[in-house]
């Protein structure tokens, strides 16, 4: 598969994207105010190459979506008899996501394990995932909060992508080596009528990968997280530890909504106005930092307090998920939860401290 590689000159990018996205809505990063978000791209529009503030997970897992509509229907002869009809029709839009980073694309892989390969298959996610081509941009620089190399991800990780683009060369001379990762990626890339990437360019791409990886390693050598799942469980009842970790947490949901791997959701019903005979059941992003997440109708809450909620968030990503999914952590090290946090709660610090400090203060 990796042999299927094409070259896109810098000036050709917009045209190539138009071709790849034929018949699809192409989402690409766009600057809105001070944020960069994925938005449907107009044909010919020169794409922004900056990393988006918010990952593109919403294209496949919308912030809020209708699971079904319910329509109450009255028996015309007996208004006391009402039946309910459910309409589970959804719009599935063939889509292409351009400009996500490897950490973003890998997020879909984390989702897939739960949404496609768990005890139940999620038909909504499945339909959108099936309809969406992911064209990813490999990273050339290490941001101060990047730690993808800790998590099994990396600056050129192709997991979850259909096509991986690597910037090579500089300025107008430069371009992108586009490697198809999946069959579907091949087909899409072929639509663009691009020259094959020659060996030199392939080498250049490899060099870019290696250089970024090196920069990351230099910035923060990846710790060994293999013992972390067990360590976090040992830490489970260490109230002081979790208090210290969560002191500054505001219990908002920024980290979870910015996270490419956070997949939790809520289900609620809403009634329409008008004749009052119809409504919707919605599935919308939810957030384990909120006290409502686990609060039961009786008022009992097994995760009362932000310390317990933060414990679950870290535990889920670095202990429970890997235990259930062959050691894969449900964190890609994108660092958005750190940059996006109003008070700079640092998940790296929590993981490292939970992993290391055990020997010092074994009061779990």
């Amino acid at each position, binding site marked *: 598969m990796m042999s299927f590689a094409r070259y896109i000159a810098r000036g050709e990018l917009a045209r190539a994207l138009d071709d790849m996205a034929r018949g699809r809505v192409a989402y690409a990063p766009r600057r809105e105010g001070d944020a960069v978000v994925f938005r449907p791209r107009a044909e010919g529009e020169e794409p922004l190459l900056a990393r988006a503030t918010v990952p593109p997970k919403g294209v496949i897992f919308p912030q809020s979506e209708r699971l079904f509509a319910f329509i109450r229907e009255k028996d015309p002869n007996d208004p006391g008899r009402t039946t309910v009809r459910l309409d589970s029709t959804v719009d599935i839009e063939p889509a292409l996501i351009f400009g996500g980073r490897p950490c973003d694309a890998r997020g879909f892989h984390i989702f897939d394990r739960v949404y496609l390969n768990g005890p139940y298959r999620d038909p909504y996610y499945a339909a959108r995932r099936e309809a969406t081509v992911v064209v990813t941009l490999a990273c050339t620089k290490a941001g101060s909060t990047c730690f993808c190399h800790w998590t099994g991800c990396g600056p050129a990780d192709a997991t979850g992508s259909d096509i991986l683009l690597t910037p090579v060369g500089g300025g107008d001379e430069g371009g992108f080596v586009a490697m198809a990762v999946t069959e579907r990626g091949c087909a899409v890339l072929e639509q663009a009528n691009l020259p094959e990437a020659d060996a030199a360019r392939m080498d250049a791409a490899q060099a870019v990968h290696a250089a970024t990886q090196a920069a990351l390693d230099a910035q923060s050598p990846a710790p060994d997280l293999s013992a972390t799942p067990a360590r976090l469980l040992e830490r489970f009842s260490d109230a002081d530890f979790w208090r210290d970790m969560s002191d500054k947490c505001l219990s908002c949901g*920024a980290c979870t909504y910015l996270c490419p791997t956070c997949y939790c959701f809520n289900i609620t019903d809403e009634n329409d106005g008008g004749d009052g005979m119809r409504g919707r059941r919605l599935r919308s992003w939810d957030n384990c930092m909120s006290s409502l997440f686990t609060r039961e109708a009786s008022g009992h809450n097994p995760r009362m307090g932000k310390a317990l909620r933060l414990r679950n968030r870290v535990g889920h990503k670095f202990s429970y998920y890997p235990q259930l999914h062959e050691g894969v952590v449900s964190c890609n090290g994108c660092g958005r939860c750190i940059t996006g946090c109003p008070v700079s709660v640092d998940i790296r610090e929590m993981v490292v401290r939970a992993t290391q400090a055990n020997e010092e203060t074994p009061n779990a």
Partner: protein
Amino acid sequence: MPVLKGKELRVVGFLCNWCSYGGADTAGVGRFSQPTDLRIIRVPCSGRVDPMFVVKALLGGADGVLVSGCHPRDCHYSQGNFYARRRLETLKTFLPALGIDPDRFQYTWVSASEGQRWKNVVSTFVEKVHQLGHAPRIEEAAPYLPLAEKGDTLPAPLRPLAWPAAGTLTASLEQLREKIRAALPELDCVIGWQQGFDALHATPLFMRKPEDVDKLTWGPLNVHNLATYLPQFKNRKVGVVVKGCDSRSVIELLQEKLVEPDNVRVFGMACEGVVDVERVRKAMEPAEGAACTDVAPAAVAVEGDGLAFEGDTPVRLKLADVVAEKCRTCDTPVPLLGDVVEGNASAPAGPGPDAPPSLEALDAMTPEQRRGFWRAQMDRCLRCYACRNACPMCVCRDHCIAESRDPHWTTQEGNVREKLQFQVIHALHLAGRCTECGECQRACPVNIPVLALKQWMNRSVLTLFDYRAGVDVNAVPPLLAFAVEEKNIKEHGL
């Protein structure tokens, strides 16, 4: 029943049971012919009319909303309409911030005997709404995003912003640390700042042990308003380090008895302005390329009126260019209460705070642009509620009506209307309470300029009630009080 397309507009009325509903009845008994557009919702008192009902109706497609109650002094419940007058006038002055024509909302007083007057009120108001036509929907407005491009500059601050020389700063900081160490034994903890995950970020520090105090930092990176943490320490003794602006939040919390004076120990230092990290980042950002956006300097040094950033390409920026917007118009650089160590910050040079730039930008827009602006801004809202949770005055938190179903003010839909609805709730709940610390906007992970709504509200509150929050511990927030004769509220002639 046929639908009356085009003939009628959607006008909602909230009428108090005792006076205006009776007045409408009297008009009916008198067979005074009136436009048919109005649909009346009966409430016990105009004091029961939550301004949010009006917003809900207007955002939901009403073309006009009318509230009517007993004449002032005639309230069946003696004070309800006095409260209503303040709330509804505040709302009326706020609606334009959303691009909603304030003429679409009116409130007035009609007694049970004033049938003729009711007819006139309805006729005049409905006619006005017809002149205005169908209300444009915010979610249908053309997106309007005046691009905040890299390098956009702030107007000059009203005071010279220059931090003391490094030596002086260190000495003051050491004094502050001493005071904290001395107080620590009797406190649960003291909240301050320390170096965050990179050189550009500070992060809140919870000092419990004397050695924690060594980590305390002081300078223009201490952006957070730590007063936000105080209410969660209810019934426990806690210390907090504040900047001048943060001290106003503490005052407001004390005033509303959300924290107990005996339980809070305030440590303050004079502040010469904090940076807007977004601005610094933008100023340092290399030309747009395949870079990650989170590039940080290796170290940051404060040099008087500037900041020096070390790294691959060293940069020196003037504080005035990267300062947080709120610091530009700050007139409380020195904390207003507490144990203040360094009290020599420069006073504002100008005549006093003028309109903050983002409010000026909003002012300069047409109503249509404002609708487009909020539509485009709110579109990317994640509903993470960082704006709320970072707000020192948002004490409902786990019980916020943004997520509750009883009452059910907002749905969980990810649309602009629901998102904006919450921002309006936030602004209305902060009316007369917001100290404009800007944490809502700073906390927003997608940089939505939500502070502008509160600034608009604060300007309304200042104009209407001559009131600024967080200045006087003994004051009463204006919406929790009333005056029989309102100095600055003109009765609306309907």
